[in-house]
């Protein structure tokens, strides 16, 4: 095993981690706000890829336009789901909201299967990003480098939005303690709509970005979703910094695990999660006894 290979593998871990970060960010802020695991999140990811496919195939054959449009469309979709359905359920036990998102996941996946088929649809790498670049010590696919850059940009953007703006401060306060924000006389329901929209939009971006390197198919979000639980838990539920760090850690754990013992790379993250939670129950940045 050469140093070059190890280095490349670290890069690949970063790519995987990037996708996890984008998904986990949304999963985590929705959890913080509503106290639910959003099972539909993987389906939102998948939907993002399919919306991008529809745009590039039937409307304008331009990846960049799709990349710009999909997050907006998905955010609107997520916000609409919140306003139409989830909003009616907040008086119920969070478990029922989870069941609802589970049903939503099944329905979305099946609708996409009915429209586009179960085999998936083609999604080529955009021309301007295909091929590899010479990094000095190795050749690396352009698209993957681009993916890392975009994730960093989005993560920084979300971070800035949440930490520097007034709205962001309200969202953070809301994820910490929704009741308190409500008590301060701020319209919490609008903030919840915003958070669900933001989370869905992030899942949508992840979907577009993953499309050129993955098989775009109705169930593509399922495998990712369960891995993302691990990310969010290791980072600490409801924590934004935790999602980012957790995503990168899980990505690297898988990438390094692959070098040591490939068949067990998948198991490794669960082992890692179990041990991690036993030593540090709150995850990296989470709070104790969240929504007990």
């Amino acid at each position: 095993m050469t140093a070059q290979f190890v280095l490349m593998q670290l890069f690949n871990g970063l790519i995987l981690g990037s996708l996890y970060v984008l998904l986990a960010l949304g999963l985590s802020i929705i959890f913080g706000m509503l106290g639910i695991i959003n099972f539909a999140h993987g389906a939102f990811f998948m939907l993002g890829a399919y919306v991008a496919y529809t745009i590039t195939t039937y409307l304008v054959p331009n990846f960049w336009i799709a990349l710009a449009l999909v997050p907006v469309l998905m955010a609107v979709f997520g916000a609409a789901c919140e306003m139409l359905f989830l909003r009616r359920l907040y008086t119920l036990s969070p478990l029922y909201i989870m069941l609802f998102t589970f049903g939503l996941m099944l329905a979305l996946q099946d609708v996409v299967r009915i429209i586009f088929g179960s085999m998936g649809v083609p999604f080529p790498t955009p021309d301007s990003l295909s091929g590899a670049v010479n990094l000095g010590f190795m050749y690396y696919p352009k698209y993957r480098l681009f993916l890392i850059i975009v994730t960093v940009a989005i993560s920084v953007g979300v971070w800035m939005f949440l930490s520097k703006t007034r709205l962001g401060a309200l969202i953070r306060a809301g994820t910490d303690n929704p009741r308190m924000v409500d008590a301060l006389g701020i319209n919490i329901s609008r903030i919840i709509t915003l958070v669900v929209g933001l989370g869905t939009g992030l899942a949508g971006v992840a979907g577009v970005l993953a499309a050129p390197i993955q098989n775009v198919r109705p169930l593509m979000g399922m495998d990712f979703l369960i891995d993302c639980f691990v990310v969010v838990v290791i980072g600490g539920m409801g924590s934004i910094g935790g999602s980012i760090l957790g995503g990168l850690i899980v990505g690297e754990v898988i990438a390094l695990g692959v070098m040591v013992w490939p068949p067990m790379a998948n198991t490794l993250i669960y082992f890692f999660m179990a041990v991690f939670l036993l030593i540090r129950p709150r995850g990296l940045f989470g709070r104790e006894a969240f929504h007990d």
Partner: protein
Amino acid sequence: MQRRSSCTSKAALLLALCTVVAWLAGAEAEPVKIAVLTDMSGPYAGITATNVEAAKMAIDDFGGKLLGEPIEYIHRDHQCKPDVANQKSKELYEKEKVDVIFDVPNSAAGLAVSNQAKLHKKLFFSIGSGTTRHSGPDCNRYTFDWAYNDYMLATAVGLWAADNLGKKWFTITADYAWGHDLLKHFSATKKKKGGKLLGNEMVALGASDFSPYILKAMQANPEALVLLNAGKDGINATKQAAEFGLKKKAKIVHALLFIDDCKAAGPEVFADDYVTGAWYWKSDNPGSKEFVEKWQKKFNRPPNWMNAATYSAVTQYLKAVERAGSKDAPAVIKALEGHKFSDLLANPGYIRPEDHMQVGKAYILRAKRPEEIKEPWDYFEIVGSIPPEEAYQDPKDTGCKMDDF
């Protein structure tokens, strides 16, 4: 008390009488009933759901009647879940009283249904599941394995690749029973041909990132990269191999690839890759053109080779019932064992009595580059074929001990 018991006995007598009458009536004119149990909503649905149509078409083309009665037909969706497949097979054999079940993709599901066939003493034609256990240690008198198995997939393309693509190979294997099976047979072929396996990587099922394995393969610098996986894993691996530039240096050989995969991923992904196929829609076997034409007219696309295999299996079953003059399982089984035929799928085809494997020529297909594709769905070119004696394992070595009825 007295009264009640006499009442019961009367009722029992009546019931018994009814049963006898029904039995006498039924013994003469019970129609043949066939079932397709396949994945219609799960991960293989894109390939196997249309097998239902293939079976219907086979019945229509046969004339729709057998032993003087119209042939009855039913299908069930096993959702690609082995437990559902097992339960549905009981429904079909017990409640629906079918005589035979066709298809059942997914090895675990296929093996479970094979066991149910044996328990119910009814026939089962395994088409979608490729495990060699059907014609090996788990073989039984009631199960027939149609059109292909893992041994044939790995061996045929392995033999061909050794002669035409070079002898330095690198394999990436899906880490579960199916992948291990393929690797075993591929390694054996490699040994036979004096090839060199530069390395193998076991990849967890459902892994979305193949880049580390592609990188290892590129460092080994093989002449052919062999992907012993299928479906989305095959698509992901090939997409990423192209991304890292591996396709410029080596050819890619697949264990399993359908025209449906090419459509889903786009033809540029698989351009110039090689794979074994049991059939291709441009084949000139007897009846093949007619079948394809009819299919094109109905569904506006050509059939895949699973469809052709289903059509063939249903047709050969119906013909066997006709030869036996009865739908009685032992009689039909005897009519099938050792039978030689020529149809759209196999020209010639042979049902080996030793292990119930239906054998035929194995085709080597090359995926066309986008600019070569002149007709929609014409994704492959037949570049060679391997005779059945070489493509399939000698029945002496399969480990099958065929039991009695």
